[in-house]
């Protein structure tokens, strides 16, 4: 199964797990799967219209999904997704 990796700031919303196995054939379907299982995580991954935020970048392996089809980008069983939200601390 593909996996999705969360930054430590989001792990409390996924029962403390930082890497989740997910199901789905596209990035959007994997986000749907995660959102069903962890409803409080959902609004941190996409907006209410189901679209990506401009301040949360999602990577499929090492590629920003915006450049490879967005939520429609196909996902293979060995793929690794990463959620990389903007942070501003210094």
């Amino acid at each position, binding site marked *: 199964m593909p996996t999705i990796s969360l*930054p430590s700031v989001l792990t409390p919303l996924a029962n403390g797990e930082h890497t989740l196995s997910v199901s789905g054939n596209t990035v959007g379907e994997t986000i749907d799967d995660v959102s069903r299982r962890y409803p409080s995580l959902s609004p941190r991954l996409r*907006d209410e219209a189901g679209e990506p935020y401009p301040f949360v970048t999602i*990577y499929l392996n090492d590629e920003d999904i915006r450049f490879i089809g967005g939520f429609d980008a196909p996902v293979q069983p060995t793929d690794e997704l990463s959620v*990389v939200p*903007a942070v501003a*601390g*210094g």
Partner: protein
Amino acid sequence: MTASTLPERATGDLAPDEYLRYSRHLILPEIGVDGQRALRRARVLLVGAGGLGSPAALYLAAAGVGTLGLVDFDRVDLSNLQRQVLHGTRDVGRHKLDSARDRLRDINPGVHVEGFPVRLTADNAQEIADGFDLILDGTDNFGTRYLVNDLCVLQGVPNVYGSIFRFDGQASVFAAGDGPCYRCLYRQPPPAGLVPACAEGGVLGVLPGLVGTIQATEAIKLITGAGTPLIGRLLLVDALHWRQRVVRVRRDPLCPACGTREIRDLSDAEQLCAVEPADDVDAVFGAVPEIEPVALDARLRAGDALDILDVREPHEWAIASLEGAVKIPLAALESRLDELSRDHELVVHCKAGGRSAQAVRRLRAAGFKRVWNLAGGIKRWSEEVDPSVPKY
């Protein structure tokens, strides 16, 4: 070396004491004498002399960067010292630039420090940055990060970027050569209040040390031409589980800064940064009604039927609490609404007001009508009402 002698020495050979001071650099083929002279000629502007700026300034001074510009308007606070290693206990209350200057002079008197004791703004940024070779972003808020990025794109100087939150860090080099800029990665900042600041969410003190020294490393590589800088790549660090990886950052042809070039001056950028919450998320991110700490104190003293809800985390309750408060962490709020009385007015607080604002929005969405956010949280309560409540 004094500042006045710097220009002459900057272009000449290394002095005998410099051969000794920088000997470990000089014997690295990737740096050598030419690289060391380039470092001495270099002018690096650090925006922020805090968590990231501290290690970066210390190492860049030690490395022999000729001129370090520091932009910071703040004074040293006791709560800074857990991570801002440029400053010491005896510096509490001093301007950060004064304490930074003393520390950097001690590390390397050959470094010229230029201080700018102001907040970086669209009005002063270009004048401050004029003449610097690269800018190191050590700021602590989105507005200034976008300002630094757009400034770098407009001035054509690299943005040596680092950012931290809790246990997570990011580093990259933006606006260098044909590489992407920060807006290529994140087109817009999040709406105010969505992402907590370190003062609210906390940060592991060592983390800015890790990320700030990565920024210093990248600055040295850019100046000397050594190695492969993080242009078009984003380094991600999770210090809690020790995960790190490098992902690709592409240049976005629609980026308003370096793509379409819609941003022609920094005032354009300021407007783009002032993101208004969209209508559909207004209930989530909009303003909430507040009550001032002194007003809450007066109403409690008058015996009004007010309940207090504390939405911080259990480890924060152990530091400081308000007497009689119902304690429910923000993440558990929706599942524990039945613990709250809908007949009483409800004042919600957290540390500084950010999380409690979210709680107020959720409570109002759940039908609670008379619910207020305690302005400034328990921090302002401590400052304005009850100093015996510890600040943290």
